[in-house]
Protein backbone atom coordinates (compact mmCIF):
# COMPACT_ATOMS: atom_id res chain seq x y z
CA UNK A 1 0.00 0.00 0.00
CA UNK A 2 1.26 3.46 -0.83
CA UNK A 3 2.19 6.04 1.74
CA UNK A 4 -0.37 8.41 3.24
CA UNK A 5 1.25 11.12 5.29
CA UNK A 6 -1.00 12.77 7.84
CA UNK A 7 -1.22 14.57 11.14
CA UNK A 8 -2.74 13.06 14.24
CA UNK A 9 -3.86 15.80 16.62
CA UNK A 10 -4.42 15.03 20.26
CA UNK A 11 -7.27 17.17 21.56
CA UNK A 12 -6.54 15.90 25.04
CA UNK A 13 -3.18 17.62 24.99
CA UNK A 14 -3.78 20.74 22.87
CA UNK A 15 -3.83 23.84 25.06
CA UNK A 16 -4.87 26.25 22.30
CA UNK A 17 -1.66 28.30 22.31
CA UNK A 18 -1.69 28.92 18.52
CA UNK A 19 2.04 28.15 18.24
CA UNK A 20 1.24 25.79 15.35
CA UNK A 21 -0.66 28.62 13.61
CA UNK A 22 2.18 31.12 13.86
CA UNK A 23 4.94 28.68 12.95
CA UNK A 24 2.88 27.43 9.99
CA UNK A 25 2.34 30.97 8.78
CA UNK A 26 6.00 31.85 9.31
CA UNK A 27 7.34 28.83 7.44
CA UNK A 28 4.84 28.85 4.61
CA UNK A 29 4.76 32.57 3.96
CA UNK A 30 8.49 32.51 3.22
CA UNK A 31 8.76 28.99 1.79
CA UNK A 32 7.96 27.72 -1.65
CA UNK A 33 4.22 28.00 -0.91
CA UNK A 34 4.49 31.66 0.00
CA UNK A 35 3.72 34.37 0.43
CA UNK A 36 0.51 33.87 2.35
CA UNK A 37 -0.77 37.39 2.05
CA UNK A 38 -2.58 39.40 4.69
CA UNK A 39 -5.06 42.17 4.12
CA UNK A 40 -5.18 45.06 6.53
CA UNK A 41 -3.21 43.08 9.16
CA UNK A 42 -2.91 45.92 11.66
CA UNK A 43 -6.23 47.59 10.93
CA UNK A 44 -9.68 47.26 12.41
CA UNK A 45 -10.76 44.42 10.15
CA UNK A 46 -7.73 42.18 9.64
CA UNK A 47 -7.82 39.24 7.27
CA UNK A 48 -5.31 36.86 5.85
CA UNK A 49 -4.54 33.46 4.44
CA UNK A 50 -3.70 30.68 6.85
CA UNK A 51 -3.17 26.96 6.37
CA UNK A 52 -3.93 26.17 9.96
CA UNK A 53 -6.22 27.73 12.54
CA UNK A 54 -6.98 26.85 16.14
CA UNK A 55 -10.61 27.15 17.07
CA UNK A 56 -12.13 26.91 20.50
CA UNK A 57 -15.38 25.24 21.46
CA UNK A 58 -17.27 25.01 24.72
CA UNK A 59 -18.87 21.64 25.30
CA UNK A 60 -21.70 21.30 27.79
CA UNK A 61 -23.66 23.84 29.74
CA UNK A 62 -22.39 26.01 32.56
CA UNK A 63 -21.20 25.01 35.13
CA UNK A 64 -20.53 21.58 33.62
CA UNK A 65 -18.51 22.80 30.66
CA UNK A 66 -15.30 21.81 29.03
CA UNK A 67 -13.15 23.85 26.67
CA UNK A 68 -11.95 22.07 23.56
CA UNK A 69 -9.21 23.65 21.47
CA UNK A 70 -9.47 22.39 17.95
CA UNK A 71 -6.62 22.88 15.43
CA UNK A 72 -8.03 22.77 11.92
CA UNK A 73 -6.19 22.38 8.64
CA UNK A 74 -6.49 20.40 5.42
CA UNK A 75 -7.16 16.77 6.32
CA UNK A 76 -5.53 15.35 3.15
CA UNK A 77 -8.52 13.10 2.53
CA UNK A 78 -7.87 9.70 1.00
CA UNK A 79 -10.85 10.41 -1.27
CA UNK A 80 -10.58 14.19 -1.57
CA UNK A 81 -13.79 15.75 -2.98
CA UNK A 82 -11.88 18.94 -3.89
CA UNK A 83 -9.64 17.24 -6.46
CA UNK A 84 -12.02 15.84 -9.12
CA UNK A 85 -14.02 19.10 -9.32
CA UNK A 86 -10.98 21.23 -10.20
CA UNK A 87 -11.37 22.24 -13.86
CA UNK A 88 -7.68 22.88 -14.48
CA UNK A 89 -5.99 20.04 -12.62
CA UNK A 90 -4.34 22.54 -10.28
CA UNK A 91 -5.64 20.55 -7.30
CA UNK A 92 -4.15 17.11 -7.09
CA UNK A 93 -3.35 14.31 -4.71
CA UNK A 94 0.17 12.96 -4.86
CA UNK A 95 0.30 9.24 -5.49
CA UNK A 96 3.59 8.77 -3.65
CA UNK A 97 2.63 10.19 -0.25
CA UNK A 98 -1.06 11.14 -0.38
CA UNK A 99 -0.51 14.87 0.13
CA UNK A 100 -3.22 17.02 -1.50
CA UNK A 101 -1.61 20.04 -3.14
CA UNK A 102 -2.52 23.04 -5.30
CA UNK A 103 -0.38 24.09 -8.25
CA UNK A 104 -0.53 27.85 -7.79
CA UNK A 105 0.60 28.41 -11.37
CA UNK A 106 -2.38 26.53 -12.77
CA UNK A 107 -5.11 27.67 -10.35
CA UNK A 108 -7.62 30.07 -11.93
CA UNK A 109 -9.21 31.05 -8.61
CA UNK A 110 -12.69 29.78 -9.46
CA UNK A 111 -13.20 28.68 -5.82
CA UNK A 112 -15.08 25.55 -6.89
CA UNK A 113 -12.73 23.31 -4.84
CA UNK A 114 -13.50 25.32 -1.71
CA UNK A 115 -17.21 24.72 -2.31
CA UNK A 116 -16.41 21.02 -2.66
CA UNK A 117 -14.56 20.78 0.68
CA UNK A 118 -16.96 20.14 3.57
CA UNK A 119 -14.30 21.17 6.09
CA UNK A 120 -13.56 24.68 4.84
CA UNK A 121 -9.88 23.77 4.64
CA UNK A 122 -9.14 25.89 1.57
CA UNK A 123 -8.70 29.63 1.50
CA UNK A 124 -8.40 31.90 -1.50
CA UNK A 125 -5.36 34.13 -1.17
CA UNK A 126 -6.74 37.67 -1.06
CA UNK A 127 -3.91 39.11 -3.14
CA UNK A 128 -2.70 36.31 -5.40
CA UNK A 129 -6.27 35.12 -6.05
CA UNK A 130 -5.32 31.46 -6.09
CA UNK A 131 -6.46 28.73 -3.70
CA UNK A 132 -4.18 27.93 -0.78
CA UNK A 133 -4.14 25.11 1.67
CA UNK A 134 -1.93 23.07 3.99
CA UNK A 135 0.93 21.35 2.13
CA UNK A 136 2.03 19.25 5.13
CA UNK A 137 5.21 21.33 4.69
CA UNK A 138 6.11 19.31 1.63
CA UNK A 139 9.12 21.63 1.21
CA UNK A 140 10.44 20.64 4.66
CA UNK A 141 9.71 16.97 5.16
CA UNK A 142 11.95 15.76 2.31
CA UNK A 143 14.65 18.41 2.70
CA UNK A 144 17.96 16.53 2.92
CA UNK A 145 19.68 19.70 4.14
CA UNK A 146 17.72 19.55 7.39
CA UNK A 147 18.66 17.20 10.23
CA UNK A 148 16.31 14.16 10.11
CA UNK A 149 14.57 15.22 13.33
CA UNK A 150 13.52 18.49 11.70
CA UNK A 151 12.03 16.91 8.58
CA UNK A 152 8.55 17.42 9.96
CA UNK A 153 5.82 20.01 9.35
CA UNK A 154 6.46 23.32 11.08
CA UNK A 155 3.34 22.97 13.22
CA UNK A 156 4.52 19.64 14.62
CA UNK A 157 7.91 21.04 15.55
CA UNK A 158 6.34 24.08 17.18
CA UNK A 159 3.79 22.33 19.37
CA UNK A 160 4.95 22.73 22.99
CA UNK A 161 2.74 19.91 24.26
CA UNK A 162 3.45 17.42 21.47
CA UNK A 163 -0.21 17.36 20.55
CA UNK A 164 0.64 16.86 16.89
CA UNK A 165 2.00 13.58 15.55
CA UNK A 166 3.22 13.37 11.96
CA UNK A 167 3.56 10.12 10.09
CA UNK A 168 2.42 7.60 7.53
CA UNK A 169 -0.99 6.29 8.56
CA UNK A 170 -0.72 3.40 6.09
CA UNK A 171 2.29 2.06 7.96
CA UNK A 172 0.83 0.19 10.92
CA UNK A 173 4.07 0.57 12.85
CA UNK A 174 4.24 4.36 12.60
CA UNK A 175 3.71 6.49 15.68
CA UNK A 176 0.71 8.09 13.99
CA UNK A 177 -0.94 4.75 13.21
CA UNK A 178 -0.30 3.50 16.69
CA UNK A 179 -1.83 6.63 18.22
CA UNK A 180 -4.95 6.27 16.06
CA UNK A 181 -5.24 2.58 16.89
CA UNK A 182 -4.51 2.69 20.59
CA UNK A 183 -5.97 6.03 21.59
CA UNK A 184 -9.25 6.08 19.69
CA UNK A 185 -8.25 8.28 16.74
CA UNK A 186 -11.23 9.45 14.73
CA UNK A 187 -11.97 11.31 11.48
CA UNK A 188 -14.04 14.48 11.09
CA UNK A 189 -17.48 14.35 9.44
CA UNK A 190 -17.26 10.64 8.58
CA UNK A 191 -20.77 10.92 7.10
CA UNK A 192 -19.40 12.21 3.77
CA UNK A 193 -17.05 9.32 3.04
CA UNK A 194 -14.06 11.57 2.38
CA UNK A 195 -11.79 9.39 4.54
CA UNK A 196 -9.67 12.17 5.99
CA UNK A 197 -6.07 11.12 6.50
CA UNK A 198 -5.65 13.47 9.46
CA UNK A 199 -7.12 12.05 12.61
CA UNK A 200 -7.94 13.49 16.01
CA UNK A 201 -7.42 11.84 19.36
CA UNK A 202 -10.34 12.39 21.70
CA UNK A 203 -10.40 14.12 25.04
CA UNK A 204 -9.81 11.50 27.69
CA UNK A 205 -10.82 11.87 31.32
CA UNK A 206 -8.49 10.26 33.83
CA UNK A 207 -10.97 8.81 36.31
CA UNK A 208 -10.33 6.64 39.36
CA UNK A 209 -12.97 4.83 41.32
CA UNK A 210 -12.39 5.21 45.09
CA UNK A 211 -14.26 2.97 47.45
CA UNK A 212 -15.11 4.25 50.99
CA UNK A 213 -12.81 1.76 52.67
CA UNK A 214 -9.93 3.15 50.63
CA UNK A 215 -10.35 6.58 52.21
CA UNK A 216 -8.82 5.33 55.49
CA UNK A 217 -5.94 2.95 55.96
CA UNK A 218 -6.92 0.38 58.56
CA UNK A 219 -3.30 0.08 59.57
CA UNK A 220 -2.88 3.84 59.91
CA UNK A 221 -0.36 4.12 62.80
CA UNK A 222 -1.60 7.60 63.71
CA UNK A 223 -5.04 6.26 64.47
CA UNK A 224 -4.23 2.98 66.18
CA UNK A 225 -4.14 4.61 69.67
CA UNK A 226 -7.42 6.35 69.21
CA UNK A 227 -9.17 3.12 68.51
CA UNK A 228 -7.98 1.40 71.76
CA UNK A 229 -9.93 1.97 75.02
CA UNK A 230 -8.57 5.16 76.60
CA UNK A 231 -6.68 4.56 79.88
CA UNK A 232 -8.20 6.23 82.95
CA UNK A 233 -6.49 9.45 84.16
CA UNK A 234 -5.10 7.75 87.29
CA UNK A 235 -3.46 4.92 85.39
CA UNK A 236 0.31 5.10 85.04
CA UNK A 237 1.43 6.44 81.72
CA UNK A 238 4.05 4.73 79.60
CA UNK A 239 6.73 6.99 81.05
CA UNK A 240 5.90 5.92 84.59
CA UNK A 241 6.42 2.20 83.96
CA UNK A 242 9.53 2.21 81.84
CA UNK A 243 12.97 3.13 82.90
CA UNK A 244 14.23 4.78 79.72
Amino acid at each position, binding site marked *: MSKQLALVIDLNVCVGC*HACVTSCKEWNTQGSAGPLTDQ*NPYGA*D*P*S*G*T*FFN*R*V*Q*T*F*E*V*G*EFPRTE*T*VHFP*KSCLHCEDP*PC*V*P*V*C*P*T*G*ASYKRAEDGIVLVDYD*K*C*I*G*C*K*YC*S*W*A*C*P*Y*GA*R*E*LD*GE*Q*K*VMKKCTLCVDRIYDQALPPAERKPACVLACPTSARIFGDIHDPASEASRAIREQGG*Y*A*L*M*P*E*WGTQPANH*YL*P*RRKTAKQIHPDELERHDNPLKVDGKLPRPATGEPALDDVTSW
Partner: protein
Amino acid sequence: MKPAWSVILLTTLIGAAQGLFLAGFLSGGPRLFALIALALAAAGLAASFFHLGRPERAWRSAAMWRTSWLSREVIVLPAFMAAVAAWAVFPEPWIGWIGVALAIALFVCTGMIYACLKFLQEWHTPLTVVNYTALGIASGTTLAAVLMPSFIPAALAAGALAWALRLASLARNARLRPKSTLATAIGVKHPRIRQIAQGAMGGSFNTREFFHGRPREVVLAARWALVALVFPAPALLLLLGQPAAAFLAQYAGLIAERWYFFADARHPQNLYYQAIA
Protein backbone atom coordinates in the same frame (compact mmCIF):
# COMPACT_ATOMS: atom_id res chain seq x y z
CA MET B 1 -23.40 30.15 0.37
CA LYS B 2 -22.79 33.70 -0.75
CA PRO B 3 -24.56 34.33 -4.05
CA ALA B 4 -22.01 35.43 -6.68
CA TRP B 5 -23.46 37.89 -9.18
CA SER B 6 -21.14 36.62 -11.91
CA VAL B 7 -22.54 33.11 -11.55
CA ILE B 8 -26.14 34.34 -11.24
CA LEU B 9 -25.77 36.28 -14.50
CA LEU B 10 -23.90 33.46 -16.23
CA THR B 11 -26.49 30.79 -15.44
CA THR B 12 -29.56 32.92 -16.12
CA LEU B 13 -28.22 34.41 -19.36
CA ILE B 14 -27.01 31.17 -20.89
CA GLY B 15 -30.19 29.42 -19.73
CA ALA B 16 -32.29 31.98 -21.63
CA ALA B 17 -29.96 31.63 -24.62
CA GLN B 18 -30.35 27.84 -24.68
CA GLY B 19 -34.12 28.09 -24.24
CA LEU B 20 -34.43 30.69 -26.99
CA PHE B 21 -32.37 28.64 -29.42
CA LEU B 22 -34.36 25.49 -28.64
CA ALA B 23 -37.66 27.35 -29.11
CA GLY B 24 -36.47 28.99 -32.31
CA PHE B 25 -34.93 25.96 -33.99
CA LEU B 26 -37.54 23.39 -32.98
CA SER B 27 -40.41 25.58 -34.22
CA GLY B 28 -38.66 26.58 -37.42
CA GLY B 29 -38.23 30.16 -36.24
CA PRO B 30 -36.09 32.80 -37.93
CA ARG B 31 -32.31 33.08 -37.62
CA LEU B 32 -32.79 36.19 -35.49
CA PHE B 33 -33.49 33.83 -32.58
CA ALA B 34 -30.07 32.27 -32.95
CA LEU B 35 -28.36 35.66 -33.12
CA ILE B 36 -30.06 36.86 -29.94
CA ALA B 37 -29.27 33.53 -28.24
CA LEU B 38 -25.65 33.97 -29.26
CA ALA B 39 -25.56 37.49 -27.78
CA LEU B 40 -27.07 36.27 -24.50
CA ALA B 41 -24.63 33.36 -24.26
CA ALA B 42 -21.72 35.69 -24.99
CA ALA B 43 -22.90 38.04 -22.22
CA GLY B 44 -23.12 35.08 -19.85
CA LEU B 45 -19.65 33.90 -20.82
CA ALA B 46 -18.32 37.41 -20.22
CA ALA B 47 -19.98 37.51 -16.79
CA SER B 48 -18.36 34.19 -15.86
CA PHE B 49 -14.89 35.70 -16.16
CA PHE B 50 -15.66 38.01 -13.25
CA HIS B 51 -15.98 34.94 -11.05
CA LEU B 52 -12.34 34.00 -11.58
CA GLY B 53 -9.47 35.20 -9.48
CA ARG B 54 -7.11 34.69 -12.43
CA PRO B 55 -9.23 35.20 -15.56
CA GLU B 56 -6.13 35.25 -17.77
CA ARG B 57 -5.67 31.55 -17.03
CA ALA B 58 -9.27 30.65 -17.91
CA TRP B 59 -8.12 28.59 -20.90
CA ARG B 60 -6.69 26.00 -18.50
CA SER B 61 -10.16 25.16 -17.23
CA ALA B 62 -10.96 22.87 -20.17
CA ALA B 63 -8.32 20.39 -19.01
CA MET B 64 -10.12 18.16 -16.53
CA TRP B 65 -13.28 17.29 -18.46
CA ARG B 66 -12.94 13.66 -17.39
CA THR B 67 -13.78 14.45 -13.78
CA SER B 68 -15.03 18.04 -13.47
CA TRP B 69 -18.49 19.22 -14.49
CA LEU B 70 -17.16 22.77 -14.45
CA SER B 71 -14.56 21.80 -17.01
CA ARG B 72 -17.25 20.14 -19.13
CA GLU B 73 -19.35 23.31 -18.99
CA VAL B 74 -16.32 25.32 -20.06
CA ILE B 75 -16.05 23.12 -23.15
CA VAL B 76 -19.76 22.80 -23.95
CA LEU B 77 -20.65 26.49 -23.66
CA PRO B 78 -18.35 27.70 -26.47
CA ALA B 79 -19.30 24.61 -28.49
CA PHE B 80 -22.97 25.50 -28.12
CA MET B 81 -22.22 29.10 -29.14
CA ALA B 82 -20.29 27.86 -32.16
CA ALA B 83 -23.17 25.60 -33.20
CA VAL B 84 -25.69 28.43 -32.80
CA ALA B 85 -23.50 30.77 -34.83
CA ALA B 86 -23.03 28.10 -37.49
CA TRP B 87 -26.76 27.51 -37.70
CA ALA B 88 -27.40 31.26 -38.00
CA VAL B 89 -25.05 31.34 -40.99
CA PHE B 90 -25.94 27.96 -42.54
CA PRO B 91 -29.44 27.03 -41.33
CA GLU B 92 -28.98 23.34 -42.08
CA PRO B 93 -31.09 21.03 -39.90
CA TRP B 94 -28.14 18.83 -38.90
CA ILE B 95 -26.26 21.84 -37.57
CA GLY B 96 -29.37 22.85 -35.65
CA TRP B 97 -29.67 19.38 -34.12
CA ILE B 98 -26.06 19.57 -32.96
CA GLY B 99 -27.02 22.86 -31.31
CA VAL B 100 -29.99 21.16 -29.64
CA ALA B 101 -27.79 18.38 -28.29
CA LEU B 102 -25.23 20.88 -27.02
CA ALA B 103 -27.94 23.05 -25.43
CA ILE B 104 -29.24 20.05 -23.49
CA ALA B 105 -25.70 18.97 -22.61
CA LEU B 106 -25.01 22.48 -21.34
CA PHE B 107 -28.09 22.39 -19.09
CA VAL B 108 -26.85 19.10 -17.64
CA CYS B 109 -23.32 20.43 -17.11
CA THR B 110 -24.53 23.63 -15.44
CA GLY B 111 -26.90 21.75 -13.16
CA MET B 112 -24.40 19.03 -12.31
CA ILE B 113 -21.79 21.57 -11.18
CA TYR B 114 -24.08 22.13 -8.19
CA ALA B 115 -25.86 18.79 -7.98
CA CYS B 116 -22.62 16.78 -7.75
CA LEU B 117 -21.59 18.36 -4.43
CA LYS B 118 -23.09 15.74 -2.16
CA PHE B 119 -22.72 17.54 1.14
CA LEU B 120 -24.57 20.59 -0.15
CA GLN B 121 -27.80 18.75 0.50
CA GLU B 122 -29.98 21.53 -0.95
CA TRP B 123 -28.22 21.08 -4.29
CA HIS B 124 -27.55 17.35 -4.30
CA THR B 125 -30.73 16.31 -6.08
CA PRO B 126 -31.80 15.59 -9.67
CA LEU B 127 -34.18 18.54 -9.24
CA THR B 128 -31.19 20.88 -9.51
CA VAL B 129 -30.46 19.77 -13.07
CA VAL B 130 -34.16 19.61 -13.91
CA ASN B 131 -34.72 23.13 -12.57
CA TYR B 132 -31.80 24.66 -14.45
CA THR B 133 -33.17 23.07 -17.62
CA ALA B 134 -36.83 23.94 -17.07
CA LEU B 135 -36.15 27.53 -15.97
CA GLY B 136 -33.80 28.11 -18.90
CA ILE B 137 -36.34 26.78 -21.38
CA ALA B 138 -39.10 28.86 -19.74
CA SER B 139 -37.18 32.14 -19.92
CA GLY B 140 -36.03 31.39 -23.48
CA THR B 141 -39.56 30.64 -24.61
CA THR B 142 -40.87 33.84 -22.99
CA LEU B 143 -38.17 35.73 -24.89
CA ALA B 144 -39.31 33.95 -28.05
CA ALA B 145 -42.82 35.26 -27.33
CA VAL B 146 -41.39 38.78 -27.24
CA LEU B 147 -40.10 38.25 -30.77
CA MET B 148 -43.09 36.25 -32.06
CA PRO B 149 -46.42 36.40 -30.18
CA SER B 150 -47.26 32.93 -31.49
CA PHE B 151 -44.96 31.57 -28.76
CA ILE B 152 -47.24 32.85 -25.96
CA PRO B 153 -48.98 29.48 -25.35
CA ALA B 154 -45.63 27.67 -25.33
CA ALA B 155 -44.20 30.26 -22.93
CA LEU B 156 -47.16 29.77 -20.60
CA ALA B 157 -46.72 25.99 -20.64
CA ALA B 158 -42.95 26.11 -20.13
CA GLY B 159 -43.32 28.67 -17.34
CA ALA B 160 -45.95 26.62 -15.53
CA LEU B 161 -43.82 23.48 -15.71
CA ALA B 162 -40.67 25.25 -14.51
CA TRP B 163 -42.61 26.90 -11.70
CA ALA B 164 -44.11 23.61 -10.52
CA LEU B 165 -40.70 21.92 -10.55
CA ARG B 166 -39.09 24.77 -8.63
CA LEU B 167 -41.86 24.65 -6.03
CA ALA B 168 -41.17 20.92 -5.74
CA SER B 169 -37.51 21.60 -4.96
CA LEU B 170 -38.51 24.31 -2.43
CA ALA B 171 -40.75 21.74 -0.73
CA ARG B 172 -37.97 19.14 -0.78
CA ASN B 173 -35.39 21.51 0.69
CA ALA B 174 -37.75 22.68 3.42
CA ARG B 175 -37.77 19.14 4.80
CA LEU B 176 -33.99 18.64 4.74
CA ARG B 177 -32.16 17.87 7.94
CA PRO B 178 -28.43 18.61 7.95
CA LYS B 179 -26.35 15.44 8.13
CA SER B 180 -23.39 17.23 9.67
CA THR B 181 -23.57 18.79 13.10
CA LEU B 182 -21.01 20.43 15.36
CA ALA B 183 -20.68 17.04 17.06
CA THR B 184 -19.53 15.34 13.85
CA ALA B 185 -17.57 18.43 12.77
CA ILE B 186 -15.22 18.30 15.76
CA GLY B 187 -15.93 14.72 16.79
CA VAL B 188 -17.17 15.41 20.30
CA LYS B 189 -20.29 13.46 21.15
CA HIS B 190 -22.35 16.04 22.99
CA PRO B 191 -25.62 17.75 22.09
CA ARG B 192 -24.50 21.13 23.42
CA ILE B 193 -21.41 22.54 21.72
CA ARG B 194 -20.83 26.24 21.30
CA GLN B 195 -18.05 27.88 19.36
CA ILE B 196 -16.07 30.46 21.28
CA ALA B 197 -13.31 31.30 18.80
CA GLN B 198 -12.82 30.53 15.13
CA GLY B 199 -9.12 31.25 15.04
CA ALA B 200 -9.25 34.73 13.51
CA MET B 201 -10.09 38.11 15.01
CA GLY B 202 -11.54 39.43 11.79
CA GLY B 203 -13.17 37.43 9.04
CA SER B 204 -11.50 35.04 6.66
CA PHE B 205 -12.20 33.60 3.23
CA ASN B 206 -14.39 31.05 5.00
CA THR B 207 -16.62 33.69 6.56
CA ARG B 208 -16.89 35.72 3.34
CA GLU B 209 -17.49 33.00 0.75
CA PHE B 210 -19.96 30.77 2.55
CA PHE B 211 -22.28 33.22 4.35
CA HIS B 212 -24.62 35.55 2.49
CA GLY B 213 -24.75 37.84 5.53
CA ARG B 214 -28.26 39.07 4.80
CA PRO B 215 -31.08 39.07 7.32
CA ARG B 216 -33.65 36.34 7.11
CA GLU B 217 -36.20 38.79 5.70
CA VAL B 218 -34.10 39.30 2.56
CA VAL B 219 -33.88 35.56 1.98
CA LEU B 220 -37.62 35.17 2.46
CA ALA B 221 -38.25 38.12 0.14
CA ALA B 222 -36.11 36.46 -2.53
CA ARG B 223 -38.15 33.29 -2.15
CA TRP B 224 -41.43 35.15 -2.51
CA ALA B 225 -40.02 37.04 -5.49
CA LEU B 226 -39.09 33.80 -7.20
CA VAL B 227 -42.47 32.24 -6.47
CA ALA B 228 -44.33 35.29 -7.82
CA LEU B 229 -42.06 36.28 -10.70
CA VAL B 230 -41.05 32.96 -12.25
CA PHE B 231 -44.57 32.21 -13.44
CA PRO B 232 -47.69 33.98 -12.03
CA ALA B 233 -46.68 37.57 -12.90
CA PRO B 234 -45.26 36.79 -16.37
CA ALA B 235 -48.26 34.57 -17.13
CA LEU B 236 -50.60 37.45 -16.37
CA LEU B 237 -48.54 39.81 -18.52
CA LEU B 238 -48.43 37.28 -21.37
CA LEU B 239 -52.20 36.91 -21.23
CA LEU B 240 -52.50 40.72 -21.26
CA GLY B 241 -50.41 40.75 -24.43
CA GLN B 242 -47.29 42.28 -22.84
CA PRO B 243 -44.57 39.70 -23.62
CA ALA B 244 -41.68 42.15 -23.18
CA ALA B 245 -42.80 43.04 -19.66
CA ALA B 246 -43.42 39.35 -19.03
CA PHE B 247 -39.83 38.49 -20.00
CA LEU B 248 -38.38 41.24 -17.81
CA ALA B 249 -40.52 40.11 -14.86
CA GLN B 250 -39.52 36.49 -15.38
CA TYR B 251 -35.84 37.34 -15.75
CA ALA B 252 -36.01 39.30 -12.50
CA GLY B 253 -37.65 36.23 -11.00
CA LEU B 254 -34.81 34.05 -12.25
CA ILE B 255 -32.26 36.40 -10.67
CA ALA B 256 -34.18 36.07 -7.39
CA GLU B 257 -34.40 32.31 -7.92
CA ARG B 258 -30.66 31.97 -8.48
CA TRP B 259 -29.83 34.26 -5.55
CA TYR B 260 -32.06 32.18 -3.31
CA PHE B 261 -30.56 28.97 -4.70
CA PHE B 262 -27.17 30.04 -3.35
CA ALA B 263 -28.33 31.74 -0.15
CA ASP B 264 -30.46 28.72 0.77
CA ALA B 265 -27.55 26.27 0.58
CA ARG B 266 -25.99 25.64 3.98
CA HIS B 267 -22.39 24.57 3.57
CA PRO B 268 -21.16 22.19 6.30
CA GLN B 269 -17.99 24.25 6.65
CA ASN B 270 -20.16 26.96 8.24
CA LEU B 271 -20.30 24.76 11.35
CA TYR B 272 -16.68 25.74 11.97
CA TYR B 273 -17.42 29.46 11.65
CA GLN B 274 -20.21 30.14 14.11
CA ALA B 275 -18.53 32.80 16.22
CA ILE B 276 -15.85 35.38 15.48
CA ALA B 277 -13.36 35.93 18.27
